């Protein structure tokens, strides 16, 4: 699924990174547990989370995750935005819950990691 479609479907706002609209994401994973995110072997996925702290950005960096969608109307902290811009992570914010955002993306063809 194209990044532009993810942004449209979830009513998302881009708050950091270069949201190059043609970027293609193949799978997504929803989790508030970074320990679980770090066990994934799949790269270039979309991470949907309701957590907003610096470790989300660090976890994404180490796990080769290029796009993170912050759900439940959470806003990224200035430190998160700064680090995301530095590491090249695209940070998005959606007013939808994790369930709603995940459901919409799944329904429209974005596959799960497992």
């Amino acid at each position, binding site marked *: 699924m194209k990044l532009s479609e993810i942004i449209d479907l979830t009513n998302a706002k881009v708050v950091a990174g270069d949201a190059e609209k043609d970027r293609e994401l193949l799978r997504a994973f929803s989790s*508030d*547990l*970074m*320990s*679980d*995110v*770090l*066990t994934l072997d799949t*790269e270039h996925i979309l991470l949907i*989370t309701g*957590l907003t*702290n*610096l*470790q*989300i950005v*660090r*976890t994404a*960096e*180490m*796990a*080769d995750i290029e796009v993170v969608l912050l759900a439940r109307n959470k806003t990224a902290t200035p*430190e998160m935005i700064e680090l995301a811009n530095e*590491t090249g992570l695209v940070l998005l914010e959606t007013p939808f819950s994790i369930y709603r955002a995940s459901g919409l993306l799944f329904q429209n063809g974005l596959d799960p990691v497992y």
Partner: protein
Amino acid sequence: MKLEFDIASGDFSKAGRASSRIKKMLKQLQVDPKVIKRIVVAIYEAEVNVVAHSVGGKMLAEIDGTGITVIVQDNGPGIEDIEKAMQEGYSTASKAVRNMGFGAGMGLPNINRNTDEFTIESELGVGTVLTFRNNF
């Protein structure tokens, strides 16, 4: 090539600095991205462990022609039961650490899974030493 980092206890804002530096360096050395991901995930987990569980410590990383060796050493309190700590799901993490998205009892097993060689030694009241290596 040798790198050394101090890791402060409880300072989550800095957790990930060592792994980030090492990741950049390995990228510059044009190491296979799959190999980079495995080692930096292991290093990051180890860093978070020192921040979350110990009174502080340090990390030494040595990159040679064939791979990278990492030693993570903290100054206590040490792990009471290493066998339990190595089980997935076992954790002694505080609520604050869990609120950060960690402390699910996946750290040490995940380090073991992502490395080619891994040893852990710990003594109560003294500290814990992890040594791991990945070949390029």
